[in-house]
């Protein structure tokens, strides 16, 4: 699978999910690690694994301030009404939907089993170690980062 093919799938999947269900728009996007702005700020990072052909892992990292904004859009509430646990859950759903969308774009006829999203303490902007594709998305209120690692076919 070509790297640019993976990047295109990541870009299309994130934009589709954010615009359709989170009522958010991507202002800018590029491959690689996120720009350092906001580095060290509290973030929600969620990872999940998928098994199929191919297998691999997927990770989404969102600064807490942005997580509250997208959660408010998803839940139809004010940002102040969104609890940390609700924001974590909404980011988990976001990761699940983006991963499903990416995989269907890369292998439309394959069957994948995606695990439930798990919270991970990783800092925002940090992708998978070793081989993997990273891409960041500027939503105006912060930068969302996604990482995809394609492992061996099972």
């Amino acid at each position, binding site marked *: 699978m070509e790297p640019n093919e993976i990047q295109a799938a990541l870009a299309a999947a994130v934009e589709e999910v954010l615009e359709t269900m989170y009522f958010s728009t991507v202002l800018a996007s590029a491959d690689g690690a996120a720009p350092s702005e906001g580095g060290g700020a509290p973030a929600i990072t969620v990872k999940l694994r998928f098994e199929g052909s191919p297998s691999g892992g997927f990770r989404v990292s969102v600064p807490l301030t942005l997580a509250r904004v997208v959660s408010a859009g998803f839940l139809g509430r004010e940002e102040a009404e969104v609890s940390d646990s609700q924001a974590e859950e909404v980011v988990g759903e976001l990761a699940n939907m983006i991963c499903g*969308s990416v995989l269907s774009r890369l292998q*439309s006829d394959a069957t994948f089993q*995606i695990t439930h999203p798990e919270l991970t303490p990783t800092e925002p902007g940090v992708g998978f170690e070793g081989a993997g594709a990273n891409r960041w998305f500027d939503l105006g209120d912060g930068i969302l980062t996604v990482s995809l690692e394609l492992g061996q076919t099972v």
Partner: protein
Amino acid sequence: MELHVLIVDDSPAMRSFIRRVLDLSGLEVGRCLEASNGEEALRLLENNWVDAVLTDINMPQMDGEEFLRRLAEHQVLRLIPVLVVSTDRTESRIQKMLTLGAKGYVTKPFAPETLRDELEHSLGVVHGTE
């Protein structure tokens, strides 16, 4: 006529989103019950009639596939139209759920109007056979 629905999903956030979409859809939603898995949904349906069920597939305790099987075995509950709402877009999965008795299948992410249209379609199938 008010539409009574049951939303089955292990994510409270997703249940909340679907409920909001239904409220905004223009459909006249009455009672909106929620369950976090198939087992809990079956318990709720023992004492509560609904016009439609919207269910996820991957859930703990009892997943969407087993939930559909159990509904299909029930003399009365099998009449309730079920709409599957899932991130799984694979054709084999969609066909399997339809074979198990689902009246429709919506993949996440979905636009609010898609959910409304599919739900109306599912209800129409039932109305047409009465």
